[in-house]
């Protein structure tokens, strides 16, 4: 084969002034590989930012602490208002608890005449005295939060409500789960509480 017919691979022909030596070595794989590898932080910051935005959207500044018992499934309501701080009464088929203290037992069959919950009445009386001592001169609001399982018969709830009303706790609030896609809850100016 003659020299004229030989195909010659073209060499590097850029002028030295514009030569990107390091880049050329990196592309062709000729360069020495650096031991120090920088961590790609951009994707991590992207992830952090998305996480912060999500958590900020879920953030609630009301600061209310609400303990839901394991065996209680709260009913769903879409027109409720935000929870306010008040004594919490939990009602199950087994019994009635107030602020994690047992204040009454629920027998298997409760009749409408069986409205007596003396422990609950005593606990409510004690809290009322405490509130009136802490805030002398202020009218007693008498707000109480009630949480009960959605399947519980109303007779269990009614006897607790009756005890609350007898002791002057008229602002009875039923704790509910907010429905998904429900309109934003708002304070009702005409609310009795």
């Amino acid at each position, binding site marked *: 084969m003659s020299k004229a017919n030989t195909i010659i691979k073209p060499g590097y022909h850029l002028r030295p002034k514009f030569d990107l030596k390091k880049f050329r070595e990196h592309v062709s794989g000729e360069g020495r590989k650096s031991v120090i590898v920088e961590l790609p932080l951009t994707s991590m*910051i992207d992830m952090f930012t998305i996480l912060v935005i999500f958590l900020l959207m*879920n953030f609630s500044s009301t600061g209310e602490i609400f303990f839901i018992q394991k065996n209680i499934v709260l*009913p769903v*309501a879409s027109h409720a208002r935000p929870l306010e701080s008040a004594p919490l009464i939990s009602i199950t088929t087994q019994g009635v608890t107030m602020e994690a203290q047992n204040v009454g037992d629920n027998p298997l069959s409760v009749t*409408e005449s069986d409205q007596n919950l003396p422990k609950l009445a005593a606990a409510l009386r004690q809290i009322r005295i405490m509130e009136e001592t802490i805030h002398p001169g202020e009218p007693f609001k008498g707000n109480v939060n009630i949480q009960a399982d959605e399947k519980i018969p*109303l007779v269990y709830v009614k006897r607790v409500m009756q005890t609350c009303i007898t002791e002057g706790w008229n602002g009875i609030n039923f704790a509910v*789960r907010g429905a998904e896609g429900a309109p934003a809850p708002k304070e*009702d100016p005409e609310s009795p509480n």
Partner: protein
Amino acid sequence: MSASGLGGGGKRSTNVDLNLVPFIDLLSTLICFLLITAVWQQINVLSTNSAATTTSDSATPPDVKKVELNVSLLMDHLEVTEDKNSTKLPHINGEPDYVSLLRILGEWKQRYPDRSDLVLYSDSQAPYKHLIKLMDTMYEGQFADVGVNTN
């Protein structure tokens, strides 16, 4: 991290790396705080005006001209009462007929636009979720002052 020196003799590089370390610190702290204080379940409340319906020792006598608007939750039907006129709404698949109730509440609201009070009577063996759903429907029908009778 390749800021040029103070000498100024050489040509200053236009590519200045942003110092990301404090930014990552801030984000990490913020994420920890938000995760700890996150509210995963939104708890709200429905209020009732039970005192007006249960206690009999109220000082003010009832208004004789006021039309009584009541809803009674029974085991198999709802009874919607406007003074003497009563309407029965049978349950559908074991659930109260909330749609018909909402329609009646709308009619009441047209007739009595100033009224927002309503008394809810209930059977003692009815499930609690029906009471809550009824109260929710009444709120939706712009009757915000719902009194639950406990007798």
